[in-house]
């Protein structure tokens, strides 16, 4: 029913937009030689691509970088990312810079087809010509990979790209980013990156029934790839309020002693950010600290109380789930209350945003899957408990953690959340083809 209403609106929008919908193809070019790009420009493009987190969606886990094919689940169906390597047949090898810029700015591919807004051009439209040029230089100097596009799994009429023109008419605002002269240069740099290339709102802003970000609820928290992206404005559920210094450290290092470790989809974001110039991370932190806003005196006091609680043995909650308490004491406390500092010790769960969040989803995901070490880096670790705890045990544990370590009301529907999390966790494991950089033919190497 809702789907048909949505479909109706989109069809109406599409018809209204028909005259405006058509876009011409942009002529193909001979794939430019990698040497034809300036090395400094390519380097700048690399940093920008890291800020844009491009590799996250445009690379299948374990697959070749930027070759696309990553399935993005949406309420409307599954959309597969495209191949943005310079392969002439299946990638963007024959795209001119103008074609690339048009895709970034307007969500139209070289052929003139409208692209689905899973590609966040509602943010990328804010990227400057100079930055698009650098991104183009970077992508056109990557290893070409022959990888044909996957067919999207969308039902009629959403499989008709014309309807996207209607969506754009409603939701795509060109040039929506304007520098604010009353703010510092650093704030403005941060705003430009956050609202544009870094597209933070794509996950952290809730979406409306048509899949567009709700402007009235910017950064109020969203759902993405079976994780909850926390509110990163005044509604932030973090037990300790964020400030610019904490954001800077967290975005650069992937963890902060008062907040814990980035994981889920955010893990890839901070991994990419670890390689970009610190001035840009500082700018993002400055702008985002302003978005969070200065905490009220009361909020600040509660944050300090939580920090003090985390440093001393915590008091038991009054209403304790006995089964959950035993599981926590036997399974979790050895790391989470060992006093070993982050990132190798477990965070005291009084500081955990996952436990204070209105949605138990992230906590369930972490108990099931743990935190995997990052290949080739010293990184935080936690074993997953999917095989050793059943849904009832995990639910009891989560209810206990909520009661003991947060000041928030009990979660509802925890058992259902755990069931869902277990099901999608299985899907995630099945879609990981294997560790990165595995040789194509593994059995060849150690033959005598």
């Amino acid at each position, binding site marked *: 029913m809702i789907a048909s209403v949505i479909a109706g609106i989109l069809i109406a929008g599409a018809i209204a937009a028909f005259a405006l919908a058509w876009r011409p193809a942009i002529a193909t070019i001979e794939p430019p030689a990698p040497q034809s790009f300036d090395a400094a420009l390519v380097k700048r493009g690399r940093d920008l691509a890291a800020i844009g987190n491009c590799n996250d969606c445009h690379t299948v886990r374990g697959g070749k970088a930027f070759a696309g094919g990553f399935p993005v689940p949406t309420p409307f169906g599954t959309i597969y990312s495209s191949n943005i390597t310079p392969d002439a047949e299946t990638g963007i090898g024959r795209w001119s810079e103008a074609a690339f810029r048009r895709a970034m700015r307007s969500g139209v591919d070289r052929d003139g087809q409208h692209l689905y807004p899973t590609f966040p051009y509602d943010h990328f439209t804010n990227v400057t010509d100079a930055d698009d040029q650098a991104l183009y230089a970077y992508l056109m100097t990557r290893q070409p990979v022959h990888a044909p596009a996957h067919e999207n799994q969308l039902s009629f009429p959403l499989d008709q790209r014309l309807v996207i023109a209607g969506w754009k008419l409603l939701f795509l605002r060109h040039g929506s980013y304007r520098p604010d002269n009353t703010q510092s240069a650093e704030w403005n740099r941060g705003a430009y990156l956050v609202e544009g290339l870094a597209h933070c709102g794509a996950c952290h802003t809730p979406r409306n029934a048509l899949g567009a970000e709700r402007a009235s609820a910017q950064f109020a928290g969203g759902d993405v790839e079976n994780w909850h992206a926390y509110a990163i404005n005044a509604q932030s559920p973090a037990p300790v309020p964020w400030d610019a210094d904490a954001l800077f450290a967290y975005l650069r290092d992937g963890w902060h002693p008062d907040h814990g470790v980035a994981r889920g989809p955010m893990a890839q974001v901070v991994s990419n950010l670890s390689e970009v110039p610190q001035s840009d991370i500082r700018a993002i932190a400055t702008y985002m600290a302003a978005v969070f806003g200065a905490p009220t005196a009361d909020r600040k006091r509660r944050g300090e109380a939580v920090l003090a609680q985390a440093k001393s043995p915590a008091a038991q909650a009054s209403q304790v789930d006995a089964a959950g308490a035993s599981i926590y004491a*036997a399974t979790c406390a050895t*790391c989470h209350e060992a006093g070993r500092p982050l990132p190798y010790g477990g965070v005291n769960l009084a500081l955990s945003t996952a436990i204070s969040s209105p949605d138990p989803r992230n906590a369930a995901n972490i108990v099931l899957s743990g935190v995997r*070490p990052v290949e080739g880096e010293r990184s935080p670790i*936690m074993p997953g408990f999917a095989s*050793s705890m059943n849904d009832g045990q995990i639910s009891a544990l989560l209810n206990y953690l909520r009661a003991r370590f947060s000041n928030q009301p009990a979660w509802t529907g925890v058992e259902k959340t755990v069931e869902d999390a277990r099901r999608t966790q299985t899907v995630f494991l099945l879609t990981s083809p*294997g*560790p990165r950089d595995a040789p194509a033919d593994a*059995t060849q190497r150690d033959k005598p």
Partner: protein
Amino acid sequence: MIALKVNGLYHEIDADPDTPLLYVLRDEIKLNAAKFGCGLGQCGSCTVMVDGKAVLSCVTPLLLLEGKQVTTLEGLGTIEAPAPIQRAFMEEQAAQCGYCIAGMMMRAQALLQRNSKPTDDEIRAELEPHLCRCGTHMRILRAVHRASRLMDTADASPTVHGRAQ
């Protein structure tokens, strides 16, 4: 006393409910195949099966195991009558120092029970939590493929406990 079912047999265990399964297996029941490696669930050498799924026994307290069935490497086969996974690891000479191998075999067994013909990539992804310092990874991969083939043949039926429960 806690009742624990290991390799098809009930054991009455006199231990605190927060005792890790690994300690009980090694110290109380004297099943020494599962090894203590890191104690943090990060190396895989303590892996056993619980209800057919690979579990890190060093971070699994007894209280999680009520009503569940534990299978260790001893439950798959014996020296005289090794299970397919054990035969395969021997025939591929997949062990060097051998410390990781019991855990590797248990997770590989759990994989083969739900997917009898895993691809190379699936085996790699499955065994990723396991560390091997000797570097016999390629032989381990071959051994899992061999076990998959052995399980197809008539003479490779499992011998003692574990597989068909």
